[in-house]
């Protein structure tokens, strides 16, 4: 693989991955706490364009996007508002379609997939990149050795008009993932175990830099990097290793990788170890992602609906686990499965997974945020119980109100629960 290794003018051994990445990008040393101005390598946006950017550009009478910005670096994914699910969103989508056409921005139709899944599939995430997106789960892309941060709608407006925005180089927390996941335990359970142990404000204002074994898959890293947002982190970064290199060879990357590594003398605010071997299937109870207990303790909970999807858990690896558990079984709870993108959907079809899901009487939903955001298909009502592979279970997030109870779990736990008719530990024989 072609990799750029620039001559460094700074002592990389003293820098965290985060500091090293900004130093490399801007050509001078940047340490944590410093504020800087930059143009992100890649920008991800969604319906936020119509909610904030388009009306404000009208207010400003700004008719064009800054000349320095590559149009391909601004990708607009219509993932939150469903496919023609309600008129308000249809109108929003149409106004964004027109905006993208006018300004020459890549537009991804509703139903194509979740932005955080598509962006990597498209080859728009390359090691060493700074990625900003108008969505809090933009952190997902840190799985590919990038610095990826969520921003607000006005931040995007600033980038579109001035070509730049600001950020603070965060201090870093080092999180060493060691050992090997056992049985049906997955990255989702690891994320839930960290939330249980450290809480929602563990990493507020920090970048979480992971080390992990080579067999910790890219999909697992994407699930973890997605969930660092729940730990309060600004970003999460995984290392560049042989596993990532192999993954990237299957993609047509838009930029040549510029991998960053942890400096051997880098100063970390805090260092923690998580032993993957001891992680068991976990579930977050309502209404916080850190309200975590072992799945086996919740066998008296009977969900009204199970949702398997979201930027956290709808990759082919997730669907394969679900297929393995659902094979030759029939679900006892209404179960919705939403593959993360069109190509994952197709891959699932090619692998015979869609047939397994249909035979198990699941409902297959087009790719999108759907129930995760509570914007379209899969909403819950008052007093209902949902079990979901998504990332947040705040009051009313998936529809309904504070009487609506959402439990968060891995795809394996969701599938095992679907066939047993109650929340069920996938590692236990049914």
């Amino acid at each position, binding site marked *: 693989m072609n990799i750029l290794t620039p001559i460094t003018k700074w002592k990389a051994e003293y820098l965290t991955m985060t500091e090293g990445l900004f130093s490399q990008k801007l050509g001078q040393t940047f340490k944590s706490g410093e504020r800087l101005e930059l143009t992100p390598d890649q920008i991800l946006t969604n319906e936020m364009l119509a909610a904030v950017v388009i009306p*404000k550009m009208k207010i400003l009478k*700004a008719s064009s996007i800054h000349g320095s910005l590559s149009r391909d670096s601004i990708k607009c994914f219509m993932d939150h508002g469903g496919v023609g699910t309600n008129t308000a969103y249809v109108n929003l989508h149409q106004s964004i379609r027109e905006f993208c056409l006018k300004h020459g921005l890549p537009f991804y139709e509703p139903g194509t997939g979740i932005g955080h899944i598509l962006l990597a599939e498209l080859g728009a995430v390359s090691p060493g990149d700074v990625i900003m997106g108008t969505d*809090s789960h933009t952190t997902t892309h840190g799985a590919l050795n990038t610095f990826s941060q969520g921003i*607000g709608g*006005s*931040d995007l407006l*600033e980038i579109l008009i001035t070509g730049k925005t*600001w950020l603070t180089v965060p201090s870093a927390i080092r999180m060493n993932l060691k050992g090997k996941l056992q049985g049906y335990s997955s990255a989702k359970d690891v994320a839930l175990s960290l939330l249980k142990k450290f809480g929602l404000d563990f990493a507020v204002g920090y970048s979480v830099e992971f080390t992990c074994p080579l067999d910790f898959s890219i999909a697992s890293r994407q699930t973890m990097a997605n969930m660092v947002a729940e730990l309060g982190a600004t970003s999460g970064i995984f290392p560049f290793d042989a596993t990532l290199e192999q993954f990237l060879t299957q993609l047509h990357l838009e930029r040549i990788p510029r991998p960053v590594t942890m400096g051997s003398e880098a100063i970390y605010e805090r260092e923690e170890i998580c032993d993957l071997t001891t992680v068991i299937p976990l579930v977050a109870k309502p209404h916080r992602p850190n309200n975590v207990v072992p799945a086996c303790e919740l066998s008296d909970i009977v969900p009204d609906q199970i949702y398997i999807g979201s930027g956290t858990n709808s990759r082919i690896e997730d669907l394969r686990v679900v297929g393995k558990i659902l094979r030759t079984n029939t679900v006892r709870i209404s179960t919705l499965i939403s593959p993360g993108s069109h190509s994952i959907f197709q891959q699932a079809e090619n692998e015979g997974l869609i047939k397994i899901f249909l035979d198990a009487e699941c409902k297959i939903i087009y790719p999108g945020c759907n129930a995760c955001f509570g914007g379209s298909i899969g909403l819950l009502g008052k007093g209902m119980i949902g079990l979901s592979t998504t990332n*947040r279970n705040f009051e009313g997030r998936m529809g309904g109100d*504070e009487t609506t109870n959402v439990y968060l779990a891995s795809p394996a736990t969701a599938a095992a629960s679907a066939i047993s008719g109650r929340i069920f530990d996938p590692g236990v024989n049914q």
Partner: protein
Amino acid sequence: MSNSAYPDILSITGIIITCGDNINTDLIMPSQYLDNPNPSYFSQFVMSGQDPEFVNKIQKIHGQFELPAILVAGTNFGSGSSREQAPAGLKYIGIAAIVAESFGSIFFRNAINVGLPVITVPNITKMVKNGISVKINLRKGFLDILEQNSKKIHFKPLEPFLLRRLESGGLIPELKQQLKSSNKY
């Protein structure tokens, strides 16, 4: 009411109203009210996920003291979703500033962009209580508790470019000025 009623946005006197840790944006601005982008609409529901009486309490403070409210929060205020309506709604109902032990990073950016001052002060929830009046000087970086023998709490002031943005009233007025001056030539 909006902050424009107060001439110097970088020097604020107000009455404290407190809330806890980890107040996320779904509690500040529940998603079911986001389909209408008009702040006069969605602001009616600010903090309704946390305290349905919140908007009334802020109005009461305005009525009783003729001062704006200053929200004091614990850690991780504004965590969760990237919705800008969260700080926009708080500003619209008359919160003049938020002092928190820490902020969700996107909320912090959004607040500056909508022209709502946000100040990070460790342990602030242990130093003040509901209903007392304080004076904040954003430029110099201190918070004066006007009761309790005028105790002064220092904090690191925001960078000048962020103070400028706040002074302009947020990103939009700042960009407006920039675009105006660049069009002259």
